């Protein structure tokens, strides 16, 4: 079964490069094409970059409370925004045949619509984040600009 990315074009590529990372202990991934830049969160703070905490945006509680360690500049639906994450894992190229849609009944729920599917990597489930939807909800900005 193949997952349908919301932005999927008529021609689905045979492989999809993904950036895998963790936020509040949960393994997540985004299309590598949506990632413009990666910097240390501390550097971003020093540079006064306004950064949204990705874990907070998608309703993940940080236990214990800990500031994001890395910042990603993601581009979605023409907008660019910095997001704070815990740690970077790797960039992988996954055959699209290995992408799976979010299973029912989860696919019915509104909140997890920010996830468009998942992959199994080293026996663990990695949820794939839809960058466009990530920018829809309001979020607490961290930083000064």
């Amino acid at each position, binding site marked *: 079964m193949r997952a349908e990315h919301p932005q999927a074009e008529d021609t689905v590529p045979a492989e999809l490069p993904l950036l895998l990372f963790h936020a509040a202990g*949960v*393994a997540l991934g985004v299309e590598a094409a949506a990632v413009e830049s990666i910097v240390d969160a501390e550097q971003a703070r020093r540079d006064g970059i306004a950064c949204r905490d990705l874990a907070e945006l*998608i*309703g*993940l509680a940080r236990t214990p409370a800990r500031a994001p360690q890395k910042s990603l500049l993601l581009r979605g639906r023409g907008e660019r925004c910095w997001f704070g994450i815990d740690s970077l894992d790797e960039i992988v190229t996954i055959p699209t045949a290995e992408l*799976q849609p*979010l*299973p*029912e*009944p*989860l696919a*019915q*729920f*509104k*909140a*997890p619509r*920010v*996830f468009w599917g*998942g992959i*199994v990597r080293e*026996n*663990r*489930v990695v*949820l794939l984040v839809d960058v466009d939807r990530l920018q829809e909800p309001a979020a607490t900005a961290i930083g000064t600009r």
Partner: protein
Amino acid sequence: MEEKSRSDLIVEELKRRKGQGSSAALEEEKSKFVIFTLGEALYAFPGVEVKEILPALEIFPVPGAPKTVPGVINNRGDIEAVIDLQAFLGLPRSKTSVGSRILMTEKGGVRSGMLVDTLVDVVDLPQSSIKPPLATLDDATRELVAGETVCQGRSVVVLDLSRIIETLGTHAR
């Protein structure tokens, strides 16, 4: 032709009735039921709806999902959702243990894992043994119950998988 005595007629009738009774018993359909526990109580799903019984695999949380859906599992490479039946039925949650199981169910094209406390048995029960749900159940629970039966002297609540999946759908709206 010798006329049959009244006693002969009675014996013949008894034989006929006995024969009918035995064939009716043979014909009574039995169905498989997967019996499990949630807390102390026994529950069941029709066996035809349970495709697989898995150990308590690691559940990967899905942010934003309701508490009745604790997350997803990796079932031999397939990502499947898990429903916490105790939370769903409003029962106090017991701790997931080594005895916990995930019943992979399928109904109406929807495949879901049902987290249960322990697997008790898979039994064949006659359809006639499934009685309507007790009137004393509250309305919300009664809607999710297909019937009740008795197994090994204990009451077993047979859950209605279609209704559970429908109700989960309404949580989404």
